[in-house]
Structures are given as C-alpha cells and as structure tokens.
C-alpha cells in the first residue's frame, strides 16, 4: 500500500465517518435513557435538507448547521411526545418517524435542489484539512462520556435506561430525563445529516443518506453503548467505504463488484471476531415503555 493511498483512505474515511459519529452519539444518548429510535435515517434527512435550504437562503453554512440541528430536534420532539408522553411503541414510532422524515425532507428541500451553496469550509489545523464539525467529533464524544459517566445527571439518565422504576424511587424524574436524551439525539442526528449535505457533498438530493441512519444505530451496538468507542466504530465503517473507492482509484486489479462488498465483509468479520459478550449487553430497560409506578 503506497503512502498516497493510505493518506487517501484515512482522510476519506474520516470525512465519511463524521455524519455517522454525530448520529451514532445521538442514538447512544437516547438508548442510554432507554429509548430506542429507529427513525435516525429520517432525522438525518430532515437535517440534510433543512440545513441545505438554510445555507442556500442565508449564505452561511454555520447557520445551515444550526438550522439542521434545530429542525431535527423539533422532529424528534414529536417522537419523544409519542413514545414518552403517549407511551406508544418505540419501534413502530421510530419507523414512522423515518418515513415522516423522508417525506418532510423531500418537501422542504424541493425548492432548493440544484442551488449552489457555500459549503462548510475546510480549516487547516496542524496540517489536517478538515471542517470544524470534523474536529469537534472527539471533544463531543469525550464530553458526552463525561456527562454520562461522571455527573449526577448522567447517573440518573443511565439509571433510567436500566430501570425507570428504580430511578423514580430514587427521586429522579425518568420521563424528564428521557425527553432530554431524545432531544439531544435529534439535535445530533440533524448535525450529522447537515454535514452530509453542507460539508461533504454540497448537494441536496432526496433520500441522500442512503441507509447511513441505520448504520448509526448499528454503531451504537458496536461501540457497546460507550461514546468514546463510537469514533473508532464509525471510522471503521468510513474506512470500509473509503477503501473500496480508493482501491479502485489506485488501480488495484480487482473487480469493482467484489470491492463493493468490502464494507459488508468487514462488518461480518468484525461481528464474527467480536462475538457477543454478556457484559457488553444493552441497557436493561431499552425499548421498554415506562408506565409509571403505583
């Protein structure tokens, strides 16, 4: 492997991974509070289209990212009300949220298709050529780890994810904590989607996330519900996608059809290698509906 190829794989792996890191961290916080959200794909799409639209309208990619975060937070607020406030089934509500996101994003993005935007600029830091959202991934993961594992708020949130009834008995308000977690999840998924349209491709197209929302959900499992591990897990997925394209560009003598299987083969290998260990299991209350206590 030549140095140029290695450098190329690393830099495009990082760029592909950024949206996954944000969406994955968002889903992680939500799942730590016991709420599984299958609608990440829809949230990312809403972030991507609203963010692109806002960038096109205002000329500022930073306002675009802010709009992406806000729009997805609001959309996930709906989801939160349905599953926490109305105690609806989380899996069904999440899938509905995904379809809602596909439709809403198509509608919001329609007038802006083909607009030329000022994308999120790359800011060289210590020789690295990335945008500000890319640099912020590591501090964000550390911050979330600290919040979840080193603060009272985080303890209460994790307790809610394990057993809302116990958290309630300890004097916490499980539903309030779940609302907070889900809103954070929506905000981060929106930023992830915004990165895709504003920084990476500078284009809006319908359903442009192409399944990345579901990869973000898988990442949380890979990362064993630990924010710090989300980054290497996302990099692995990013690298698999980058590798197949970089290998072609480097002129490796392999069929493109075989190369396109690389990401999935890699995933299978990791799953086989890693296996399933008891101590890595999910929060005990994940996906269960807290109906309150007598």
């Amino acid at each position, binding site marked *: 492997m030549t140095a*140029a*190829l290695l*450098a*190329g794989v690393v*830099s*495009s792996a990082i*760029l*592909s991974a950024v949206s996954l890191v944000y969406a994955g961290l968002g889903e992680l916080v939500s799942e730590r509070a016991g709420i599984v959200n299958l609608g990440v794909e829809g949230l990312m799409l809403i972030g991507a289209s609203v963010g692109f639209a806002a960038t096109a309208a205002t000329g500022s990619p930073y306002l675009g990212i802010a709009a992406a975060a806000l729009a997805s937070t609001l959309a996930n607020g709906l989801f939160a009300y349905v599953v926490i406030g109305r105690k609806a089934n989380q899996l069904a509500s999440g899938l509905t949220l995904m*379809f809602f996101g*596909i*439709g809403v994003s*198509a*509608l919001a993005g*329609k007038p802006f*298709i*083909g607009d*030329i935007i000022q*994308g999120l600029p*790359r800011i060289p830091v210590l020789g690295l050529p990335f945008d500000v959202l890319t640099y912020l991934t590591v501090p964000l993961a550390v911050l979330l780890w600290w919040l979840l594992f080193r603060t009272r708020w985080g303890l209460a949130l994790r307790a809610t994810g394990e057993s809302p009834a116990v958290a309630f008995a300890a004097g916490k308000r499980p539903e309030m904590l779940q609302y907070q977690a889900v809103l954070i999840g929506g905000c981060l998924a929106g930023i992830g989607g915004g990165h*895709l349209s504003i920084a*990476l*491709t*500078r*284009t809006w*197209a*319908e359903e*442009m*996330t*192409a399944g*990345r929302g579901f990869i973000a959900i898988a990442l949380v499992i890979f990362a064993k519900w630990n924010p710090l591990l989300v980054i290497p897990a996302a990099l692995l997925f990013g690298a698999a*996608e*980058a590798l197949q*394209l*970089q290998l*072609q*560009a*480097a*002129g490796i*003598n*392999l*069929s*493109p*059809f075989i190369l*396109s299987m690389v990401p999935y083969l890699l995933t299978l290998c990791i799953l086989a290698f890693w296996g399933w260990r008891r101590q890595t299991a999910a929060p005990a209350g994940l996906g269960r509906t807290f109906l309150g206590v007598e």
Partner: protein
Amino acid sequence: MKRLAQLLALAFIAAVSSLNAFAEEKPSLIVGAIYVGSVNDYGYNRAMKDGLETMKKNIPGLKLIEAENVPETGDAERVMEGMIQQGAKLIFATSFGHQQSAFNLAKTHPDVFFEHAGGWMQAPNFGNFFGATQTAWYAMGVAAGKMTKSNTLGFVVGVPIGYAIGNVNAFELGALSVNPKAQTRVVVTGGWADKAKEAAAANALIDQGADVVTMHVDSPATIIQVAESRGAMSIGFQSIEARQLAPKGWITGLGFSWGGFMTATAKSVMDSTFKGGMVRQGLGSMLEVAPFGASVPEDVKKLVTAAADKIKGGYNPFTGPIKDNTGVVRIAAGETWGNDKMGKFDWYAEGVIGKAK
C-alpha cells in the same frame, strides 16, 4: 409518500386545468413529459427540461404538462395516463426505466404518440431517441489530455454498463491523441445517484493525483463541486449548465441538446407525419460541446473544436487496432465499432486504469 404527493399533484393539476379550460384558448398541441428526478439537477433531467422548453418556444400555442420524480415502476403508467386524460397527444418518457410503461400505453392509446429516451422498443406510435455519446467523448478526452499537468485523469462511473465504459474508452483515446502519457483512473460507485459515494469517489481520484475529474452519473453537481473545492479541474456531462458549478476549474463538458429533435417530433405529430423508429444522433444535433472555462487557453479550445468537428464529420475513434488495458487486441486493424456495438464494451482501453468486470 412520493406516491401520495404525486397523486395530490395530479389531482391539483387536473383541478386547475379544468378551471382554466374556459379562460384559455385551445392549445395547438398538448405534450406530456415525465422525468425520473428533479429538473434542477444540472444533469440528465435538466437537459431534457431544456429541450422541452426549446420545443415549447418554437411552437406557438403548445402546452406542456410535466411531472418530476416519476419512479420507473407502474406508477409511471398512471402519471402518463393522467396526461392523456388531459389531452396530451405526444408524450416524452425521458428515463430508461419508463420504457415498458410508455409502451403499454402506446398499445392502448393508438392515437397518442410516444418518444422514449434510450430504449429500443418500437411501434407505429412509439419511437426511441438518444445521443450517440461515445464518439463525442473523444473531444472531451482531447480537452482533458491537453489541460492535465499530472497526466492523471479521473472518471467516476455510476454503473459500469457497456455504454458508460465506451464513454471512458473514447475519453482516454482522445486524451492519448494529444498526450501520450495521459492515464484515466476509473472509480465505480455502484449507483447512478449516491451523492456521498460520488463525493468520496471524486476525493479518492484527486488523492491519487487526478487533476481533471469527469463523470457518468445522473447529476454531475456533487462531483464538480468537490473538484472545485479541492482546486481540481472538471469536465461535465449531461447538461452544459453544470459549468455554473465550477467558475474556476471548469474546462468544458458534453451536454445533450434535445430541442431540435423534440421540436421536429412535435411538428410531425401536428401534421400527422410521425415516424418514430430508433434515432441515435451525435455531436451537432443531439449533443453539444459546452462553453469553455476561463482558464482554457486558445490553442486547447481550437484543438477541442477541431476534434469535435472531426467527430461531426464522421470520424470514429473506435477504429482498430485498439488494445485493452491488459494488452489484448479488442478491435482489429481495419475494423470499426459503430453505434450497434456501443453497449458491448466489457473492457477498458489501453491507458485506462480500472477493471471492467
């Protein structure tokens, strides 16, 4: 969701047109058109839209009914049926996958005429048209071969079908004709419209030293913008309007120009001389070379224009001997591959770095 939106849109169109029926004069001809994507894509659909607008301008009183984002499924048939209900006498089904739906309607509506882009089916009221892109790509290769400094050209391909491989091959042959050191690196994304992968593919090619990037995907917008943001040059395909996306790095591009053909077809329906058949035309009629970018020197412009004129004059770059990139002679000396062979490429020409299957 899409389906519901389309139904609502159709209902809306129907309601509005019935309201207007009294106010408007009777149109000279009603033409329907369906697109697979958005007409603002700077690519395939935009080129179709521009052609139809030219037709509308050329024929007074012509009324155009359009529908965007029409999937390549049975839904297309219902959308076109709705257009026929509104009085459309000519329908352009502009995406490859619309063929069967349009053909079904041609059988049940013998008084309505259909033109489909890119297919092969034929009936007295059903014709096919497309641009002969492969030979025209030779001129793009001349432009890229002259402009490159690294002698490395990048080509992003959506799906490596024979026609796309033919485009790549002609591009490399054109580049070699002016620059014997020029190489073309190919990256396949696996889909015609996966934006994030297109961005990653363009980045990969630039990482590998390509300083000119081009593409065969539905919309060139993402790849051209990535190239522009990284200081690479670009050559567009599908719609010549893509040049707006790269004020600095744009060299030139190959765009479809359907206006003339669509105007002639509409006129033939109006005076009942519709012929249909399978129409394939290249540079000078269904294809045009885009305006050059600001950075392109005069001598390069002249060379590219001369190459385009040579192609217009009947020159075929696929004239043997042509070897593939493993050294095997694929087109023997004296042999020429014409339009009928353009879907048959399953090999890359010498100088292309990539594997076709």
